[in-house]
Every structure is written in structure tokens, then in C-alpha cells.
């Protein structure tokens, strides 16, 4: 049990706020949709592989949207693909998060001016939680993006809004 070993007395009970418990569980197992689009997908793969090891943050690629918590939009979104991404997003169960990786997904990147078939920013189709700049972003940048997303999840609340 590592750090927690022999730290508890007989009660075997932990008391925590519901928000804290749920947020902790959610942020430490952000399962991403195993889905690459373009150049950034290679950097995303490099992030999951030996050197950078995405797994240590609980990010595991799942191949179906039904089991995924987050999509990393890794690359240029074309008009043809945007409709399919929207469909994938709709198939995911709540809560769901989007990381927009790279300039192309953020705003069209180098293709913003003459790209007749490029969607200028994935946020025109689905809502985005974290934008990671770069063309392509280094794996460290993607990790930073993930940490930002975790911070965002940490501050969420399940409480009913009273106004």
C-alpha cells in the first residue's frame, strides 16, 4: 500500500467531502479516446510511450467513445472530419472533457488563411476545456495541458446550484 501502509487505525473509514472524493477519482483516471488526427497524434503517441509515460497520470487510451472521459483533439480538423468528431463527442458519457492539442485544433494553425477544407478551431463544433499551443506541442506541453485539466476537475462541484 505504499504511503498509506499502517497509517489507519481500526476504524477502516475515511471521511471526505463528496466533491473531493469524486473529483479525486475523476481526475486521476482520465481515460482518453484513442484517436489521432494528424501530426500531433504522433506527439500524443510519443507522450503515451516510454519516455513520457502518460499512464502515470491515469491516462489510458480507450478505443470506444463509450468508455472515454476525454478526447485529445490532436491535429487539424477538416470539415469532413468535424462532423464525425461531433458524433464521437455526443457518444461519450458525461462528464466529458476536451483537450485541444496544437495550433490547428485551436484556431486552424498554419492553415487559417487558405485552408478551404480546414475547420478554423474545434471550438466551433464542440466545447473545449484546455487549449495546448504549439505546432506540434512538445510532450511536456501536453502533460502540462493534462495537469491544467486535472486542476479544472479538482475545482468542480456536484452541489445543486441554488440561486
Amino acid at each position, binding site marked *: 500500500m505504499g504511503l498509506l501502509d499502517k497509517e489507519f487505525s481500526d476504524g477502516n473509514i475515511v471521511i471526505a467531502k463528496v466533491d473531493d472524493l469524486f473529483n479525486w477519482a475523476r481526475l486521476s483516471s482520465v481515460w482518453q479516446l484513442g484517436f489521432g488526427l494528424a501530426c500531433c497524434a504522433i506527439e500524443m503517441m510519443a507522450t503515451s510511450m516510454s519516455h513520457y509515460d502518460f499512464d502515470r497520470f491515469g491516462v489510458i487510451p480507450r478505443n470506444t467513445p463509450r468508455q472515454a472521459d476525454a478526447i485529445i483533439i490532436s491535429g487539424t480538423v477538416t*470539415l469532413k472530419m468535424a462532423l464525425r468528431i461531433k458524433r464521437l463527442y455526443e457518444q461519450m458519457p458525461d462528464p466529458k472533457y476536451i483537450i485541444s492539442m496544437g495550433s490547428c485544433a485551436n484556431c486552424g494553425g498554419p492553415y487559417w488563411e487558405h485552408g478551404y477544407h480546414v475547420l478554423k478551431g474545434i471550438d466551433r463544433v464542440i466545447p473545449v476545456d484546455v487549449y495546448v499551443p504549439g505546432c506540434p506541442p512538445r510532450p511536456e506541453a501536453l502533460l502540462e495541458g493534462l495537469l491544467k485539466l486535472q486542476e479544472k476537475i479538482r475545482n468542480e462541484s456536484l452541489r445543486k446550484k441554488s440561486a
Partner: protein
Amino acid sequence: MKSAEEIFDILKKKFGDAVLSLDKDTPVEQIISIDPLKINLISKYLRENPELQFDSLMCLSGVDDANGIKVKDAEGNEIIEGGTLSVYYNLHSVSLKHKITLKVSTPRNDPQIESLEKIWKSANWHEREAFDLIGIKFLNHPDLRRILMPYDWDEFTEEISRHPLRKDYKNPEFYQGMKVPY
């Protein structure tokens, strides 16, 4: 190994008027111009003649020559009328190691070229691409659909936004509810 001049002479002797000219002055590539409706016969000959044996089509490029007259249409967009669209064929012989570039030109308002799909299979997708992006119709092509742009592009766009690599192409405002310009 044959030079462009030798190949031009062979073709001229065999096909006469269908082989139009040899462009020698421009740098790097020498180009043989061909009649667009005879290109399939000439290509078949180029592939099957034991002296030539052009067994592979390296590249097929559709080009908008933009050599017509620029006019304004009813909505104020600048369009090109008249002139030609061209297709360049880069052929190569794996066994004899020689190369040649062919060119066919076809009028812009009714662009029609014979397909080479029966002769070199690799022409299939290249021709679909030229049809998609430039708007050249290839006669006797088995499956002439759009390849890169969405299949339903025509339904959402105006006439001027059909073929993106034409020089007078204008972006449509929306495609399926998504804004296209920045």
C-alpha cells in the same frame, strides 16, 4: 534509354496530328503536347511498344492554366472565362529507365479527357483528384467521384466554389452549418 526528341519522332510518325508539339525551350522538362481525346491510344502505345515500355505513371497533375479572360459575374466575383485546363502526365519506364512528360489541354467550359485508368491503374485516384480539385471530366473512368472533398460538397456550395484549385475559386460561407472562412 531514349530522349524526348526521339520519343516525339516515334509518336509523330505513328499518330500524326494527334501529337501536337514538343516544347523544348522551357527549362528542365521537355513536354510533348497531345490531343486530349487520343491520349488513351497514345498511352497504350507508349506502354506496349517494346522500344518504349513506359510501364509506370509517376504523376498526373491537373492544372488550371488561367489563360482566359477575367470578367465580373453578377455578384461581383472575378471569374475566368474561356482558356484551358491542362493535365500533365509524368511517365517512367522501370525497365528502360527513361522518362517523358506529356501534356493535354482541354477547353475550360467543357473539359473532357480520355481516362488512362485501363492502362495504368495508378491513374485512377489521380484522375479522381483532378476531377475533384480542378473539375476535369475523364471519359470512360469507372468511378469518377470526388475523392478528397466531401461527397456532398456540391449541395452546400455555389458554382464558383465547386473546384478549389481553380484560380477563380471562392470560399463558400458555410458548409453544413460550419463557417468556412477564418
